[in-house]
């Protein structure tokens, strides 16, 4: 029971991070129908940006307050990662919108290779261990075979995720940008005819997706404390799995899928085998795409000839 409770907490924390990344996949797929393979590497880039900004605040400006530096790092990494993704969209994908269907995917794979090697060249191959922060924990149960703990980090992750999802939901549902996004998703040509700037809307979608990935990146950096140039691929594939499981194109689906993947992964590691935890995620990806391509909350894709 204690193990179960502990894994539930860990799984929900991990799932929040996957959910935030998954939104980037699902929004881009919804609006231009491409799998943004480089999104996991954009997330990786944001972990580096967060780590360096965090160190810079301490080293150059002497800011020791964790709360201040957390907020500054969060906002700045969202902005910088957003800029990165906007430029990626501009140079790697925009011209390919009318091209054959696999062209954007191949370009995205190239971009993914480029980004991970860029971080590798710029920052070196070794793991970067961030200084430990927020190490306090709350003991939920005591005296049993096993103390169930809830760390401050985990509370932070869940609270930040929930807040940003609420803000994001507001943007998509209530602002003119969100309306333009939903219009482009339904019919880009019609939206353009009615005066929506499709290029700007798509760029904004990439920026928002990257900003949410950057939130995930900051939280990941705080939670695990280790950053590596190769750490984009596997979280990226898992977040994509989450997006597919929830129903690609559906934003609540991405969050739900993220939580499910996080839970499945932690329970799998706890009860079966930690060695094969990636196999669990990859198998879910394959099984979902093969048997349930529209996912849990997605609309079935109807193909017109």
């Amino acid at each position, binding site marked *: 029971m204690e193990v179960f409770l502990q894994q539930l907490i860990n799984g929900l924390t991990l799932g929040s991070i996957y959910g935030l990344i998954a939104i980037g996949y699902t929004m881009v797929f919804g609006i231009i129908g*491409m*799998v943004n393979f480089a999104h996991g590497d954009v997330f990786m*880039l944001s972990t*580096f*940006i967060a*780590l*360096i*900004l965090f*160190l*810079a605040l301490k*080293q*150059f400006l002497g800011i020791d307050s964790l709360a201040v530096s957390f907020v500054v790092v969060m906002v700045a990494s969202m902005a*910088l990662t957003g800029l990165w993704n906007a430029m990626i969209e501009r140079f*790697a994908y925009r*011209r*390919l919108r009318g*091209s*054959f*269907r*696999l062209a*954007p*995917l*191949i*370009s995205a*794979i*190239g971009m*993914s*290779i*480029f*980004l*991970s*090697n*860029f*971080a*590798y*060249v*710029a*920052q*070196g191959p070794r793991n*970067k*261990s*961030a*200084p430990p922060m927020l190490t306090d924990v709350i003991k939920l149960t005591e005296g049993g075979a096993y103390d169930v703990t809830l760390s401050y980090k985990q509370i932070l992750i869940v609270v930040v995720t929930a807040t940003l999802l609420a803000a994001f939901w507001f943007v998509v549902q209530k602002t003119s940008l969100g309306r333009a996004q939903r219009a482009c998703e339904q019919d880009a040509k019609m939206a353009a005819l009615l005066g929506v700037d499709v290029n700007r809307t798509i760029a904004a979608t990439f920026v928002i997706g990257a900003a949410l990935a950057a939130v995930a990146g900051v939280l990941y950096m705080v939670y695990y404390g280790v950053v590596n140039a190769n750490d984009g*691929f596997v979280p990226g*594939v898992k977040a*994509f799995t989450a997006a597919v499981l929830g129903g690609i194109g559906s934003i609540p689906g991405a969050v739900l899928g993220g939580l499910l993947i996080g839970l499945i992964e932690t329970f799998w590691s706890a009860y079966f*085998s930690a*060695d*094969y935890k*990636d*196999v669990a995620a*990859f*198998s879910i*990806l*394959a099984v979902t*795409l*093969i048997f349930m*391509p529209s996912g849990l909350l997605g609309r079935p894709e109807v*193909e017109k*000839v």
Partner: protein
Amino acid sequence: MAGARASVLVDALRAAAIAGGLAFPIVALRAEPDFSNKLVLEPRWSWMFAAMALAFLVRLASAFLPRRAAPAAARPRDEAAARRRGRAFAVFGLGVIFAWPFLVLVVAGPSGALKWIDNYGVQILIYVMLGWGLNIVVGLAGLLDLGYVAFYAVGAYAYALLATHYDLSFWLCLPIAGILAAFWGVLLGFPVLRLRGDYLAIVTLAFGEIIRIVLVNFSTLTNGDAGIGNFATITFFGVPFNASEGGFAAVFGLDHSPVYRLVFLYYLILALALVTNLATLRLRRLPIGRAWEALREDEIACRSLGLDTTKVKLTAFALGAMFGGFAGAFFAVRQDFVSPSSFNFIESATILAIVVLGGRGSQIGVAAAAVAIIGGSELLRELDVLKRFLGSEFDPTQYRMLLVGLAMVLMMNWRPRGFVATRAPTIALGERRAIGGDLVREGRG
């Protein structure tokens, strides 16, 4: 006029600002652990300013360069001459490839030639073969396979395990490795039959990763990350390449040298690659090859015309996988060592890059791309001299995949059909004409 010039300048300044924003934390500040293993930032502002200056200049230059003229009216092409030129080039290329070990031996001598035959010969030819194998799946059938390296791994491990446990010879294992890989191709192909395009790509990626993870963790069979080594070395049809009495050098009355083994390996992989090429060229003329190309162009049209897409897709997967398996067995015998780290996603991506850059479906283009990418990354290794100017930290080989990734993006934007962007229809009514890739619209697939 002044206003236009000012706006160009503002535009260039904006580009520089953006470049600065992109480069700011990740290039300008490098986090390195100090003596107490705490991360400390080393500023490298000059790098960031270099990036900004570069962006500024590129933007400025692009504003002043003349706009590209409208494409000239289609000029009549001399098809027959083009075909003759192509054939002459192929013959010349083949001649160079056949003579390569001897050319190198003459120029560099037996000990200097080792590197040139191994790194620039055998290594490139393995990727040429893998590229041609994947070309069946991606180039002809239009199925984007991101897990091709799995079949390469199946071939390599099949040979390594059979040689270790049953002491089978390479020549016996080669067909077995191919058959096993083809079997796995069908096995992994079955579930993905209903998927198209990007979904298919992602699922094959997942399968490839699953196979790699199993290789890492199924230690009782595969020895995990440590890999399997020392199972067998290649023999010249039973004559071993060593210094012993019955060794190759003694039998043929030559001085012992490791170069004979390499030359043999070179011609072996050359033969295997040429078999792949010939098989592909012949298959394209068979009904199944035409069905592949039809599938690539439009799957719905294929189905409505009564093609059995299940069969068409599975044969593509199986044959592509089979050649991957052959290449894997060769890889195992050449290295005399296999481990899961040789079969990661980057390997799949490299092979895919070769096919994509070469022009999907073009045999000669794929070979040229393999030479460019693999030979190019070997050449990067030669640039070690640059260390003298740029510090000992500078390692040119690190830039290999960076450039490959960038090349894939540029290629998709600039020439989405690859280096060789024409498609000669395999059959045609009357005269056969090469069709420019820009004229062919690819269907959903």
